[in-house]
């Protein structure tokens, strides 16, 4: 009797530990191999763009926290810069440095979650607790700064909400002194771990052409070997005055553009963020932290597209104003959205377990996909 085989449809999610929020994949599998993988998104759609049209500019700031709750500072910053450019608001130098400082600190903890959950998704549970332990310290620092540990609502048009508390910079350098050796330890434990490498090297390779076609951004783009960083190439805020390198994926450890390359780019980015933070501490100018001259916000009719670099890559705000106190249209373009769209093409032909590695390596965060 001939052995009959048929493909099976498997639902992965919406509640699955590796989906980082609520995502669903409809898989057609042949044994362990995926024939087709279709992402089904929208479970966390909150209509942020519609809400933005109904609120005065300043009141939308807390919603940007929820855009990507792992990188609330960066989302705050992107939105603030957009409105400031449209309304011509000056930002004092001290505020600019504080902003870069909190943005880079947030990038570190966002990447910590990313690499921690990455290890957990493919079966190593302990590294996650290591990452969370380091992140806790930063959460404490942020709490001291603005009272919140996750959704900060800290950045204002024209500056920041509060000045740095007494002794904050000292405690920050203490954290950095503690963090750098920890990162090396983390690398010894996980990054160079043989099992970890075997699971990731050569899995789900994204070519440069694919990365461009799907408009990938951030670490996912750089892991494919494209040397592009908004902070360096289109500097905003005070990034132009700071020195840092742009980590680009290499084929030194595996294959250019594979899961392992994407993992390493995030580790290296954390090292660069530490460098930027040290310079911010050394260069922190005195002076006002908020430009209070423009209390009545008026945006003249026109349109503007501003992008900044969030941990998940370019965060673009497309703002159309027709005058008045509310935006006519605010389109939010996020890194996770384009990263999700490539999963269907890359997923075909992978093993089910490798799909988990792929999703983790793209570092998608569901609320940022759905908005």
């Amino acid at each position, binding site marked *: 009797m001939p052995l009959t085989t048929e493909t099976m449809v498997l639902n992965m999610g919406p509640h699955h530990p590796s989906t980082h929020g609520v995502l669903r994949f409809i898989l057609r599998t042949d044994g362990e191999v995926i024939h087709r993988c279709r992402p089904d*998104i*929208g479970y966390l*759609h909150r*209509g942020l*763009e*519609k809400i933005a049209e109904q609120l005065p500019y300043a009141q939308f700031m807390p919603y940007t926290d929820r855009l990507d709750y792992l990188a609330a500072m960066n989302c705050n910053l992107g939105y603030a810069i957009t409105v400031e450019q*449209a309304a011509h608001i000056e930002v004092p130098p001290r505020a600019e440095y504080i902003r870069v400082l909190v943005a880079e600190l947030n990038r570190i903890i966002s990447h910590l979650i990313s690499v921690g959950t990455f290890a957990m998704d493919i079966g190593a549970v302990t590294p996650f607790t290591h990452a969370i332990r380091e992140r806790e310290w930063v959460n404490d620092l942020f709490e001291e700064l603005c009272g919140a540990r996750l959704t900060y609502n800290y950045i204002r048009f024209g500056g920041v909400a509060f000045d740095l508390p007494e002794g904050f910079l000292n405690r920050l350098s203490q954290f950095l002194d503690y963090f750098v050796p920890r990162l090396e330890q983390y690398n010894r434990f996980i990054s160079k771990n043989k099992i970890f490498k075997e699971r990731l090297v050569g899995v789900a390779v994204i070519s440069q052409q694919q990365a*461009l*076609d*799907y*408009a990938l951004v951030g670490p996912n783009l750089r892991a494919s070997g*494209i040397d*592009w960083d908004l902070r360096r*190439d289109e500097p905003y805020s005070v990034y132009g005055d700071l020195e840092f390198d742009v980590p680009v994926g290499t084929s030194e450890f595996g294959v250019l553009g594979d899961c392992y390359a994407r993992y390493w780019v995030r580790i290296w980015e954390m090292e660069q963020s530490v460098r930027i933070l040290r310079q911010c501490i050394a260069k922190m100018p005195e002076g006002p932290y908020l430009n209070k001259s423009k209390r009545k916000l008026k945006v*003249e*009719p*026109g*349109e*503007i*597209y501003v*992008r900044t670099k969030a941990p998940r890559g*370019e965060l*673009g705000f*497309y703002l*159309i104003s*027709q005058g008045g106190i509310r935006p*006519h*249209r605010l*389109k939010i*373009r996020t890194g996770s*959205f*384009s990263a*999700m*769209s490539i999963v269907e*093409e890359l997923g075909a032909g992978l093993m089910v377990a490798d799909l988990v590695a792929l999703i983790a390596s793209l570092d998608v965060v569901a609320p940022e996909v*759905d*908005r």
Partner: protein
Amino acid sequence: MEAQGILERIKRIIGEADLVWIDDQPGDPYLVIPKEKLRRLAIYLKGDPHLAFDTLMCLSGVHNMGEQDEVEVVYHLYSLRHRHRFILKVKLDRPAVFPHFYLRVDSISGIWTAAAWMEREAYDMFGIHFVGHDDFRRLLLPTDWEGHPLQKDYQEPDAYRGTSTTREETEGILAEESG
């Protein structure tokens, strides 16, 4: 290349007729083109080695209900090779009767793959049909959702699948509980 230089090259390939260049407003200048020319221009923008727009940064729908009821599709293009950007717009009239017959434009998902999901989102939110798209359906909202929420005249439905979208029923309970 500067936006003006890109505009000159575009004029040379598809002619000056019907192009509207808007640069007198604050913010970024943009080019409005007739929808029939979109696909041809898109292929050229990506393929021409002097322009080489290799990424589609953003695709947005916009609904205006001022003097004219119209829906815009906005394409933000970027060239990583040359580090320049350009903004294209297509305007679609939205008449009161059978608007969905008129909100149609060629899909560019075959040119920039990233457009595939962005176009699905624009359909979901604005009801714009992208002709020639491989897998055209809603993206974020459920398939049986009625209407396109980012249209300015969108009315929120009272219920979805028998579940009320307002909180009127619970208001009574709240009042009772809080005495």
